[in-house]
């Protein structure tokens, strides 16, 4: 099991008020799945994404990623786990504006301590997998929205992560480009990657094989679906 959540609970304390964002979630995701987590705003999607992405730790409950207990890890350990296990794709791309596409893709490899030569080679391979080799030396502001998100996907893939975590990956893209990006993710899924997309758009969720609905911090439904 790649992801194993048991009793996963996150409570935010704002002053004296306790705001439960996730309540006793149980969720298992197997290697190679393509899961969409859906829900209206305030349903706990973002909190779910932060915890699954090891950016945050649960208040209590268990989160196991690839056999590693994530709860009660230090910040330094979480950073290392993120670097090795998770590839992020964000709604706003989150590329470094002053760095070339290639440099952006190389960034996680820098933190993994990989040598310059190998970095370059791996980054070029990742850019190849999103068909952007010819844009390697362009800055983000010289790329279209779709191209930027493909660079971000390449960056997410370059370390060979256990999990690709996409948070509203098409939120800033038009529908045509959105479909391109989702097709790309579907292709990566076919190549064996585990992909978890967080979205509120039905159109996007339909690329996934399994859809988990969240509402008020709880799982409302969890269904396999056949992809059209």
């Amino acid at each position, binding site marked *: 099991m790649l992801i194993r959540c048991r009793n996963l609970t996150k409570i935010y304390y704002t002053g004296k008020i306790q705001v439960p964002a996730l309540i006793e979630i149980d969720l298992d995701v197997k290697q190679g799945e393509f899961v969409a987590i859906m829900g209206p705003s305030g349903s706990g999607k973002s909190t779910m994404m*932060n915890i699954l*992405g090891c*950016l*945050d730790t649960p208040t209590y409950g268990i989160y196991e990623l690839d056999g590693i207990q994530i709860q009660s890890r230090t*910040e*330094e350990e979480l*950073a*290392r786990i*993120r*670097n*090795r296990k998770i590839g*992020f794709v*964000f709604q706003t791309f*989150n*590329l*470094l504006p*002053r760095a070339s596409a290639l440099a952006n893709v190389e*960034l*996680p490899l*820098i*933190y*993994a301590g990989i040598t*310059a030569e190998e970095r370059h080679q791996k980054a070029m391979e990742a850019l190849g997998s999103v068909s952007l080799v010819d844009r390697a030396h362009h800055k983000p502001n010289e790329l279209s929205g779709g191209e930027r998100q493909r660079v971000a996907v390449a*960056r997410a893939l370059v370390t060979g992560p256990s999990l690709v975590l996409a948070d509203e990956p098409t939120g800033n893209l038009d529908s045509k480009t959105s479909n391109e990006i989702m097709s790309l993710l579907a292709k990566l899924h076919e190549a064996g990657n585990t992909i978890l997309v967080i979205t509120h758009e039905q159109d996007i969720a339909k690329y996934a094989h399994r859809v988990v609905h969240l509402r008020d911090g709880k799982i409302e439904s969890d269904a396999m679906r056949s992809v059209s």
Partner: protein
Amino acid sequence: MIVIWEGIKQALYSLRANPLRSLLTTLGIVIGITTVIAITSVIEGLNISFAEELATMGSNVLYVQKWAWVDKEWYKYRHYRNLGMLEYNAIAKIASDAQFISPMYRTVKDIKHGNKKAEFVMVAGVNEQYKDIRAAYPAAGRFLVKYEVEGGRPVCVLGSEVAESLFGQENPLGKNVLIDSTHFRVVGVLEKKGKFFDMNLDTVVLVPFGAFERAFGARHRSLTIVLLVPDQETIPKVENEIRAVMRRVRKVPFGKEDDFAINRVDVFKQLYEKLTGGLYATMFGVGAISLIVGGIGIMNIMLVSVTERTREIGIRKALGATNRIVLFQFLVEAVTLSAVGGIIGVVLGLLVAQLIAKVSPVPAAVRYWSVLLGLGFSSAVGILFGLWPARSAALKDPIEALRYE
């Protein structure tokens, strides 16, 4: 390693992107390092030309005189009696530790040879031992000899510059020079030395003591008694002996101050050390204040930079940068900024030192350690004042930072 390079690249990028902002940021550092480099260069220059010359002057030479060379209360000496042969003979008799001793009268005269003239030349009446006291060795001919001194013969030894201005290419040996109305035959020319106050041996004419008295008179002149002591250790002993005999001969009552002075080149050394000490203190003051101001500038700009780049910090952390890596990155950036200021400061400092050397008599000598000192100081300032901004960057919550607009 790569993180260092990233930090340097980022800092250089910021420098290029906001040249004015960066310039103002590093201004304090630039001023501080410029001061440090310029002043150390000048002091080092002084050390070379002044202190070394001081050393060749011989710190083992004592000058017993009416006036102290360095004294704020110069006016009290006016009432002191002149020194004369009485004092000289008394000191010569008791100062057994002194290797050489000479009386000396000095005056300033114009010197003529044919139609050539050297103006305002120091003429000194001394004995034959003065050669060893001042290491006044002849480059041509010979020094004054004992029988010339005892007989008060009208002969003279010329300083190298005097010889050159009066004789040029001509050989001065055996020729006569005219001082006032007396002809002096040239018996020697001194080696070229260097300048040192009024005792510059290059611009002096030495004549036998007796000849001086006869030609220029001894009345209203105060004698200077010059002694060479073998080493530094015997100086206090000799000084005490001289003081005792001088007080006795001059009948200074018990409890009254000396009415004479025993001078040494060392007083200039002390004066010099005071001067350079003052310069160092100034350098330290100006340098420290500028570096603190510069450091605050760096801190300020780094805090701005950290805030501006909050989202970047979030991205980096999401991709696996640990707190330590983020801290390090911003620290390297701060150090790069201040080091650039330091480099500019070093270059400016060297230029200022050259300028001072050009337009003033103060020399300048660049020491590689002063350059290292400047770069070291500026980098230290970068680390010190970059630490807080870098820490605030490192401690940012990645979730908050990613959401930052």
